[in-house]
């Protein structure tokens, strides 16, 4: 390789990612920052067209009707997260969701479904004690992101599309963030962007599992970058699995995509390889049990080899009447039909699929991190959900905290004088890291990714044990080493997806290692984390959350006690006499 050149660029506020968090941050930063502030958005794909916010189906949790209150939303969030959430973050999430949904409706132009009388329609997701999820059919994310996208595109924001962030570059003394190193994917050139404040909103995304739901651009780049600059990451063992991902074979990208929750809610049945219903063997609620319980039930059935053709189980809807299914779940039926499956009348193979990542960078309720100038919001930030995220709290979290980050950055920037200068050594090291595959003999990167996904699924998946996770660590290390030897041909680096695949697997390996270490550290079962060797949740009053950080080449995991700043286990903040649940039993 000839000497690598780095294009240098300056801005004031830099935002990484255009999911709900990134776009709200841009809009709010424009509102609060002094006039003339330069706002730049850099994103791995096209603005608004990548990331998971767009894929939100179910909807958005907000206490806006039917007797629901912020207190009740908060208590559900804490109970759902098994007392691990940062309570101040969870409170702000529930409280601000109300404002954010009004903003979405009144200022951004979203339309959420209405009742016949014209008021907002709320539905109930599993694990909630009120009907509180607002939605636009089952395409809520498209409505939210399209409207946000229009707003962002029509404002004076600098767009760096198909710019992939690969390194957070600190100042020489390490006290603050100087800027972000990226690859302009369209040309394959490096670009270093300095900014006074940077929001990282790259959306996590547990795509290191064999079956996963998030969009293809999400490969944990953000958390891998945070790890490398030494930031603390919390709750890293908490990977949420959705019980019903489509299973269609390893060779198709459709495998792993979500078949919606509502199918089970409406009475869909899960059958094992012998076409026998099995969920009641595991839980009294059968298929209607919560996500984690159903995922474990399916996983257990798979471990017994009672599997369908491709190694999963079947979902059956036909007993509800194919016509009714076709009508009520038209989108799902059509999607399955496009893939060659008959959801309304036949059996469709499903498998638990990695859906959401509860872990993330340690932040305060204003999205600030311990590094001056770096802010984190959305799925990249840890804390709001604890050990489990309620359906509908994901997009609420990213839009609420994205907006908060925008507001805070717009204010903080007033006290930040000049741009900070980067530690050129770190910058060079990051460039070298990205160029590592150059000059080596090309090999198949996809196979390596498959190996990693297989290892994580088997050893650090739905049901975990010490033995398994230790084996997993070994496998991850091997794959990581092998990756270091794999080359990428450098003939043409413009839009070179194979180079980016290499970088993707790099990020995924790094974060997989942290997930496994955190999983080993938590010797109990909470929410999404289930240890076969420690099946009990442990004492709630002395609940801890894991905090991992990189020190040298090692990952160190500490456990920090949860601060019950608002409510203690066994207590509630709901007024005395409030009913347990407002959801009518059906």
């Amino acid at each position, binding site marked *: 390789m000839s000497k690598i050149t780095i294009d240098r660029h300056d801005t004031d506020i830099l935002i990484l990612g255009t999911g709900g968090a990134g776009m709200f941050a841009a809009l709010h930063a424009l509102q609060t920052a002094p006039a003339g502030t330069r706002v730049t958005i850099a994103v791995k794909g096209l603005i608004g067209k990548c990331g998971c916010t767009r894929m939100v189906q179910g909807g958005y949790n907000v206490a806006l009707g039917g007797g629901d209150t912020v207190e009740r939303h908060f208590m559900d969030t804490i109970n759902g997260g098994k007392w691990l959430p940062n309570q101040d973050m969870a409170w702000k999430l529930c409280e601000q969701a109300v404002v954010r949904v009004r903003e979405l*409706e009144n200022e951004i132009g979203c339309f959420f479904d209405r009742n016949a009388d014209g008021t907002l329609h709320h539905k109930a997701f599993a694990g909630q004690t009120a009907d509180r999820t607002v939605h636009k059919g089952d395409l809520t994310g498209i409505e939210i992101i399209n409207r946000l996208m229009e707003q962002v595109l029509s404002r004076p924001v600098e767009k760096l599309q198909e710019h992939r962030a690969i390194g957070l570059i600190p100042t020489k003394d390490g006290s603050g963030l100087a800027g972000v190193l990226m690859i302009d994917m369209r040309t394959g050139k490096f670009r270093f962007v300095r900014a006074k404040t940077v929001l990282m909103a790259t959306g996590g995304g547990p795509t290191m599992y064999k079956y996963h739901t998030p969009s293809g651009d999400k490969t944990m780049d953000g958390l891998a970058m945070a790890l490398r600059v030494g930031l603390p990451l919390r709750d890293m063992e908490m990977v949420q699995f959705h019980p019903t991902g489509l299973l269609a074979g390893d060779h198709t*990208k459709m495998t792993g995509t979500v078949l919606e929750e509502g199918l089970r809610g409406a009475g869909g049945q899960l059958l094992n390889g012998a076409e026998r219903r099995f969920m009641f063997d595991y839980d009294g609620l059968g298929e209607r049990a919560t996500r984690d319980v159903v995922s474990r039930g399916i996983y257990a059935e798979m471990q017994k080899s009672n599997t369908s053709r491709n190694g999963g189980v079947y979902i059956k809807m036909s007993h509800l009447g194919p016509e009714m299914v076709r009508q009520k779940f038209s989108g799902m039926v059509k999607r399955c039909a496009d893939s060659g499956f008959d959801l309304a009348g036949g059996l469709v193979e499903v498998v638990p699929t990695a859906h959401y990542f509860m872990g993330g960078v340690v932040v305060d309720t204003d999205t600030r991190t311990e590094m001056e100038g770096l802010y984190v919001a959305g799925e990249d930030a840890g804390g709001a959900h604890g050990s489990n995220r309620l359906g509908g709290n994901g997009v609420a979290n990213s839009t609420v905290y994205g907006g908060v980050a925008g507001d805070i950055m717009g204010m903080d920037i007033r006290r930040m004088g000049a741009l900070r200068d980067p530690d050129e050594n770190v910058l060079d090291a990051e460039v070298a890291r990205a160029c590592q595959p150059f000059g080596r003999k090309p090999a198949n990167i996809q196979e390596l990714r498959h190996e990693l996904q297989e290892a994580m699924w088997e050893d650090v998946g739905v049901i975990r044990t010490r033995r398994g996770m230790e084996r997993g660590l070994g496998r991850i290390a091997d794959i990581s080493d092998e990756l270091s030897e794999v080359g990428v041909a450098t003939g043409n680096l413009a839009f070179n*997806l194979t180079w980016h695949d290499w970088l993707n697997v790099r990020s995924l390996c790094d974060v997989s290692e942290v997930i496994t270490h955190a999983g080993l550290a938590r010797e109990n079962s909470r929410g999404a984390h289930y240890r076969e060797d420690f099946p009990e949740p442990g004492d709630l009053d002395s609940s801890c959350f894991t905090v991992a950080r990189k020190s040298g080449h090692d990952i160190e995991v500490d456990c920090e006690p949860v601060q019950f700043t608002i409510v203690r286990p066994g207590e509630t903040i709901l007024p005395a006499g409030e009913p347990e649940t407002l959801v009518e039993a059906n």
Partner: protein
Amino acid sequence: MQEMDVSVWRGDAGGGGLEQFKVPAQESQTILDVVAWIQQYADPTLSYRYACRVGMCGSCAMMVNGVPRWTCRTHVNKVLKDNAITIAPLRNLPVIKDLATDMDPFFDKWVAAGGVHHPGKSRDDAIEILDPATPARVETDTGIECINCSVCYAACDTVANNADFLGPAALQRAWTLYLDPKDADPSAILDAVSGRGGCHNCHSQGSCTLYCPNELNPMKAIAGLKRVTAAAFFKGGR
């Protein structure tokens, strides 16, 4: 194993041509899977774009056998002819490289067509009470399911021939905004769609509606805009 003959357009803004690949046939296989297979196993330099892989993000549209389609939701069996498929970048947009196009013109027009909500209220106001059953609401509800995939834009020959034409998706967005009682400035939308590249350039070719993978109807939306702009014309002031 059974193999298919796949021709893929390779090149960049400077030009290019078709290249042939043999791709193993699988039971569940989309066009996107075919393209990804080629990049992962045959030619690591092939460029394309996708994100959601389930028909929600509109990143993956390409010309498949000369017809624009979302590739992540197009099963190979649907388009395979004589065991062959031809895949090319989406029409009517500048090519970046191989199968990836620059979608900026599409989105610039989306904004130019007035496709941005004009707020009349703020986050401090309550959510508006709106009847979900009015015909306008029902029509808007489907219209806003658009995933901005640009398939309609690629299908339209008016777009191909008239550089200023805003195109079906942008105009359909404008129509849904016009119908939305929450929008505080409907006349701004009518102005935006009445210029030299506006809705009046559409020749009702109907390809937009025919090829829209979400079964939306931009042709009808554009007719709606023509109707209301014409009415506004008679009321004067325009």
